[in-house]
């Protein structure tokens, strides 16, 4: 068994989350306490359970849990990066443009052709815009170009 399996990495990460949460929760204090548990009780309980579970996962990881292959990991990382760029650009560029570009990029990543990807991006963005902004009346950002 490899030392650094995916199970171990996740287990350590969750343990850290639990520890951080518990440290924060200990500091919760209030002037008006109406029940014996208070704001601390439940978070501390959840953190304890999480710590116990993740410790167990670290000590006895599953054999079959492995990291994704290199090429796959690269594609996923690119997708995550594009999500981040999308979040940054949706307000300034507007919903339609940024969504169309993002969908086109993802379509390329999934192996679509250039023209087909661009078309699918534009169609998807337009369809969603009609449904959400026009029919449902939800305020989507128009952006600087269409705004």
């Amino acid at each position, binding site marked *: 068994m490899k030392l650094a399996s995916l199970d171990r990495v996740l287990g350590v990460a969750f343990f850290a989350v639990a520890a951080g949460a518990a440290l924060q929760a200990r500091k919760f204090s209030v002037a008006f306490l109406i029940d014996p548990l208070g704001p601390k009780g439940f978070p501390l309980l959840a953190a304890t359970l999480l710590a116990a*579970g993740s410790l167990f996962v670290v000590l006895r990881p599953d054999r079959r849990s492995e990291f994704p292959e290199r090429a796959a990991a690269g594609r996923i990382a690119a997708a995550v990066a594009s999500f981040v760029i999308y979040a940054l650009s949706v307000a300034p560029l507007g919903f339609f443009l940024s969504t169309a570009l993002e969908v086109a990029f993802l379509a390329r990543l999934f192996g679509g052709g250039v023209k087909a990807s661009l078309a699918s991006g534009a169609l998807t963005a337009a369809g969603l815009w009609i449904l959400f902004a026009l029919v449902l009346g939800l305020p989507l950002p128009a952006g600087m170009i269409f705004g």
Partner: protein
Amino acid sequence: MEAIQHLASGFAVALQPLNVILAFVGVLVGTTVGMLPGIGPINAIAVLIPIAFALRLPPESALIMLAGIYYGSQYGNSISTILLNVPGTASAVTTALDGYAMTQSGRAASALAVSAIASFVGGTLSIFGLVLFAPLLAKWAIRFGPAEYFALMVFAFAALAGLAGANRAKALVATSLGLLLATVGFDPNSGLARFTFGEMKLLDGMDFVVVTIGLFAVSEVFRVLEGGEAGRLAAAAIGSVMARVREAVAAAWTMVRGSVVGFLVGVLPGAGGTVASFMAYATEQRLVDRRGTFGSGDMRGVAAPEAANNAAATGAMIPLLTLGIPGSGTTAVLLGALLGMNVTPGPLLLEQRPEVFWGLAASMYLGNAMLLVLNLPLVGVFVRVLELPRWALFPGVAALSFVAVYAVNQSVLDLWLMTGFGVVGYLMRRAGFPLAPLILGLVLGPLMEKNVRRALALSGGDWGVLFSSPLAIALWILAAATAVLPWLVSRRGAGRGALSLLRAEGGSQ
């Protein structure tokens, strides 16, 4: 019997041509809106209420349309859940387990048909429940105090623990992570903000839609990007409508049991569809899952939560109509609509405005029937979505996720969180952590914490209050039995243990 007479007159109202058309429009709009995750019936109803006012519809006609939207959106939600693994509401998470698994094995059409039929059965049976037992059940709902709610939540978690499977530690991690996430936000019992890091948005807690869409839909996009067989959705076999109906008959008793469980839970204000659909699933798994097929595409795993979900929606009408107390967000909107029509729901509604009560009962039935008529033939159309090539389908799923998360609150933070949960969800699924317990922890956690603290505040800190009523004690015994029984059973018949809820990671295996 007087009730039957009233119901008949209710049907006479509901079957007027205008009302039938309105029911149809309601179901149509509801189904369409319901397919979009994150929007939900509340927004659809809120959009249409002013239109109903503007058209000067009589109260019963407006209610018929609203009921149509309510049911339609629930079914629409099942469509996107089953086909794309994008559950837009907490109650659909349970449907995703077996529904998406069925889609992956090429049985999407069957899953959709079973879901429609189960919804119809749940809606139909629960309307009988409403007609026969409404006043009685209203009394039951009042007796249900904080201690009883807490015991009910423990019961729900016991159902989860009793099913603990291959890797209990991973299930524990997922559940407690959900519980911990549930504590993020403003704590009403102390007026304190917990784990919000000064971010105003987080005061309301982790948005359920953001977490689910990240964990289920976005992680699915990443998984498919791995390449290989993942996400290659088998070409769906589309049989005739009758063939699908015949197939669904096999799950008839599952639907009946799911309806009963769902209806009873739905009557309790605040508990609602999530608890109902999960309880129905867990019960059904205990009772009928002999071969351990739940979680890997068992039709009954779709039928139970779908029936329960719809029955719960009807059950939620009981506290609204008999007590004037809205038990869920959607019934709160309905309450507003009723008030706007000069109808005050409450203990006197049945006496003073029987035509509204029975008209609504009849119209809910009509909405359910309409749903079946509209959607069964359309199953084949919806399934076509799966014929799209992956490069067109999954970027679309991603875009749908973006809008669902962003449109409602316009918060970029939500997009960050969604992406984060997508990555975490992807890694967890890869490592074999089950995701359903995480969602349950997130949804049930606040109910559990609030009610235990409420109970203790009411008793002045005396823990005995948790076991002080016969109802609470009964629930505790049920919880204990639920946790222990499968363990005893599995000791006797090895390999029979029903493990799928914990094995299934959003139906991906």
